[in-house]
């Protein structure tokens, strides 16, 4: 019996991935973590309010997926050279040092584009939500933040 034909991403429509939920998880803004993040930014590590970039970091770390897992949903790997496209953070309330956030996320868009120089590419949008623990939507309490991101997957064989 022969092996199944390998998947050609340029011939595949990934629209059915829209709505796919990430496994989710939790992320704690431990003091050591908030201190080191501010320090890497050459910002004040002793500020009591965690740096806003931790909203994105918490979402990614608590999504329940590795980058390789996410790339594989789109038949891609790190070797294909996926790139950040856009990012948006909405903070409904400031982050709190020491808080543990429930993280949920999902794929929200997939769009095939063809650039004059870059050729075919899939632009995948996903969003990550942070909630405080408690009763409420997405298995958590108060909605603290949402991060939207897009990843560009080059499809060079097209």
């Amino acid at each position, binding site marked *: 019996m022969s092996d199944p034909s390998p998947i050609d991403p340029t011939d595949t429509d990934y629209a059915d991935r829209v709505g796919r939920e990430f496994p989710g998880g939790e992320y704690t803004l431990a003091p050591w*973590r908030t201190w*080191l*993040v501010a*320090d*890497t*930014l*050459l*910002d004040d590590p002793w*500020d009591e*309010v*965690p*740096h*806003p*970039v931790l909203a*994105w*970091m918490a979402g*990614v*770390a608590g999504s329940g997926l590795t*980058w390789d897992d996410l790339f594989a949903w789109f038949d891609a790997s*790190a070797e294909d050279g996926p*790139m*950040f*496209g*856009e*990012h*948006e*953070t*909405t*903070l409904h309330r*400031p*982050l709190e040092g020491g808080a543990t956030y429930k993280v949920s996320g999902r794929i929200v868009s997939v769009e095939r584009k063809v650039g004059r120089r870059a050729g075919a590419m899939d632009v995948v949008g996903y969003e990550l939500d942070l909630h405080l623990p408690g009763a409420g939507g997405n298995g958590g309490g108060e909605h603290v933040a949402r991060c939207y991101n897009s990843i560009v997957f080059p499809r060079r064989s097209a």
Partner: protein
Amino acid sequence: MTTLADVEVGTVIPPLELVVDGEKMKVMAALLADPNPIHFDTRALAALGMDERPVNQGPLNMGYLQTMLARWAGGRDRLLTFRVRFRGNVLAGDTVRAQGTVAEVRDTQRGRVATCDISLEVVGGDVALSGTADVLLEEAP
């Protein structure tokens, strides 16, 4: 002295300029659990035919802009929304400048909010990030 009460369309946010430190990028790679060697391994960069200076992480580039906005507005808790497009790389040793200008000021339920056009550029080079951000200037009474 200019205060937040004086902010209007066209107000220029005090820029933040800094030199990107490759050692900090190594710490961020660990914090992100990001195994991509382009952020720390100069030998891997050479093998890829890239500039041997490590490539800064996207979150650090975003963070410089957020720091600029927070310092201007009086705290990290003042940032409401932050939107950017990634346009280019920043390398270890680059000097970057975070900058912004107020495009709109309006009253909302949360208080007086400024929408700002923002960008991060490599000094002597290209724009790495551009976008907009909403910042709370004054809490609603």
